[in-house]
């Protein structure tokens, strides 16, 4: 099979080719402007709040959320909305507690902020480990999704698809650094928002009103249930079920736990936090969150309309269904088929190309974040004790990019047949359980010490990972045991408070000489974080 609906994939390939040429031109342009470490890690601090807002939104509007959430709405209706709301509500928290203080204290990585007044070696080592773990799980999920999607859309064999993604992202990051990564993300965000807006508008135009759309979707689901042999009352109930919560949230503990992971994980994702160092000052950091929240919220409203549109326009059209009545190409294809139903082969090609572009942009940001953790935190700050020269540091960073790309390609191929659905929520849970408590307490609690954050971060990270392994998603689904040892869907409800408690207890019990230095540094750090005095690359202060 080549094209998604059985047609040729040429329009998709041609449009994807255009995107590749455009992004390579951007990379070439960015490469000329990327000289120093500040250019490579943080685009020289020259991105505006509006641009950064689009780039942040781009990081969140991954192919997984565009195709995955619209697919979930296509299958279960309202449940998809619950999921997408969880991804949005972390943003206000980032703004209220983190964004400006991060910008005022940090230069390139969130570890700059987390280790500001602490002993550099232990805190940066911990931050680098957690960055690499979060990035790795996020990256595997993206690579596997990418390989499957591209095989489906363009008819390329899975390993080639994964390799193409790996090579492209390496080019962007290696030569264009943060500047190219940001602009590729912005271009893709605009394309994706444009395509999704067009699809949602076309759906609403066709039905006249949201109420008419929902009514037709309920009818369509009821008819599908009746066709499968349901009695009329059962069919009616099946139709109505898409307008309310279904099986997505099973027990309250899992619900709250996943909610906490999504909400506070956003405030701890290294590739997201890194974006706050690309803007000139705290004001721009703040503006970028407002734009990002607006775009992401708007995008989730669009996916909701797109998912419901697909229930009617795709779910009742035999062209898009196989003999058993399931979606051709798998559940994730709902939005792609809808593109064909709305705009024919040409628009199908456009949306496929945008989905591919989305994956490239997201993995590039992840890779850059992982590479900075190795070169800036581990090599320059820990290994060379802050004495590394810029040329050597950038060389380490570029070598790491290549290594990470090779690892991502290898793991992407290795995990082809595995169920990787848990990996993104695991990344969020680790970010919420390690990075978020460490950052929050180091910023706002005078009594916090080096030993406290290292112990608490390690506990949060280990617990998030360990409990996930013991949870149904891995213990039962992947490892094939009969019952899960940890029965809930997400570990955050336990691992995040455990991290906070450990930081508090260990810091309180810490009477070392270092602890005195840590506490003495608090007042000056707090004033810097609140006022921006001495901020890196700050203008006007």
């Amino acid at each position, binding site marked *: 099979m080549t094209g998604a609906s059985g047609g040729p994939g040429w329009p998709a390939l041609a449009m994807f080719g255009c995107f590749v040429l455009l992004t390579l031109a951007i990379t070439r342009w960015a490469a000329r402007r990327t000289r120093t470490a500040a250019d490579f890690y943080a685009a020289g601090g020259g991105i505006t709040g509006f641009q950064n807002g689009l780039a942040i939104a781009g990081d969140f509007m991954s192919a997984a959320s565009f195709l995955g959430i619209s697919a979930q709405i296509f299958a279960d209706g309202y449940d998809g909305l*619950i999921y997408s*709301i969880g991804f*949005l509500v972390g943003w206000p928290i980032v703004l209220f507690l983190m964004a400006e203080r991060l910008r005022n204290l940090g230069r390139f990585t969130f570890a700059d902020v987390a280790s500001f007044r602490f002993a550099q070696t232990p805190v940066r080592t911990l931050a680098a480990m957690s960055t690499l773990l979060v990035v790795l799980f996020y990256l595997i999920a993206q690579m596997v999704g990418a390989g499957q999607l591209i095989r489906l859309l363009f008819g390329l064999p899975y390993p080639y698809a994964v390799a193409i993604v790996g090579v492209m992202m390496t080019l962007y990051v290696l030569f264009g650094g943060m500047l190219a990564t940001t602009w590729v993300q912005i271009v893709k965000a605009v394309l994706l928002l444009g395509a999704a807006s067009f699809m949602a508008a076309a759906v609403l135009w066709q039905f006249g009103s949201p109420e008419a759309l929902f009514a037709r979707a309920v009818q369509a689901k009821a008819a599908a249930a009746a066709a499968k042999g349901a009695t009329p009352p059962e069919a009616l109930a099946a139709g109505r079920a898409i307008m309310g*919560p279904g099986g997505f949230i099973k027990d309250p503990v899992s619900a*709250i736990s996943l909610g906490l992971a999504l909400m506070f994980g956003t405030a701890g994702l290294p590739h997201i936090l890194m974006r706050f160092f690309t803007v000139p000052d705290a004001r721009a950091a703040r503006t970028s969150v407002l734009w990002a*929240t607006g775009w992401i919220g708007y995008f989730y409203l669009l996916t909701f309309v797109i998912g419901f549109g697909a229930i009617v326009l795709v779910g009742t059209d035999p062209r898009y269904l196989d003999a058993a009545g399931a979606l051709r190409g798998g559940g994730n294809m709902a939005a792609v088929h809808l593109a064909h139903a709305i705009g024919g082969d040409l628009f199908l090609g456009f949306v496929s190309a945008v989905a591919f572009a989305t994956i490239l942009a997201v993995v590039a940001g992840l890779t850059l974040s992982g590479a900075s953790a190795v070169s800036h935190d581990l090599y320059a700050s820990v290994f060379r004790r802050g004495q590394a020269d810029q040329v050597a540091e950038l060389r380490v960073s570029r070598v790491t990019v290549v290594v990470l790309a090779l690892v991502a390609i290898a793991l992407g191929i290795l995990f082809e047949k595995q169920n990787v659905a848990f990996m993104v929520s695991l990344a969020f849970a680790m970010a919420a359980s390690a990075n978020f408590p460490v950052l929050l307490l180091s910023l706002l609690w005078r009594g916090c010490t080096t030993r406290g954050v290292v112990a608490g971060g390690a506990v949060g990270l280990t617990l998030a990972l360990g409990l996930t392994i013991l949870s149904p998603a891995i213990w039962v689904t992947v490892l094939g045991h009969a019952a899960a040892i940890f029965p809930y869907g997400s570990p955050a409800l336990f691992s995040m408070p455990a991290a906070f408690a450990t930081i508090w207890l260990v810091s309180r019990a810490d009477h070392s000489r270092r602890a005195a230095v840590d506490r003495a540094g608090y007042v000056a750090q707090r*004033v810097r974080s*609140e006022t921006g*005095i001495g901020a890196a690359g700050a203008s006007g202060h």
Partner: protein
Amino acid sequence: MEQGEAALERLAEDPRYRRLVRRRGRLGLALTAIMLVAYLGFVLLVAFDKPLLARSLAGGATSLGIPIGLGVILLAIALTGIYVYRANREFDSEVAAIVAEARR
């Protein structure tokens, strides 16, 4: 311009600095609390009262859950907007004044 730690610690005692940090911190905490309560409330509603959210809003297909879900999304954007508005209008100029004063 880098300032010595001693100057920063003196600034921390400045009543206007303390007032700014207290007000901004309080706004941030209040908005965080509103977001947390609204979102966790929504999640708990989903966990404990599914039929309520599935109930028809005005006799049609649209359910009560649609405006509630939409409301959480709009609330997130609105709270972000409130913070940015206050920070741009009030806090930034206060920070600039405090920093300029401390430099003198």
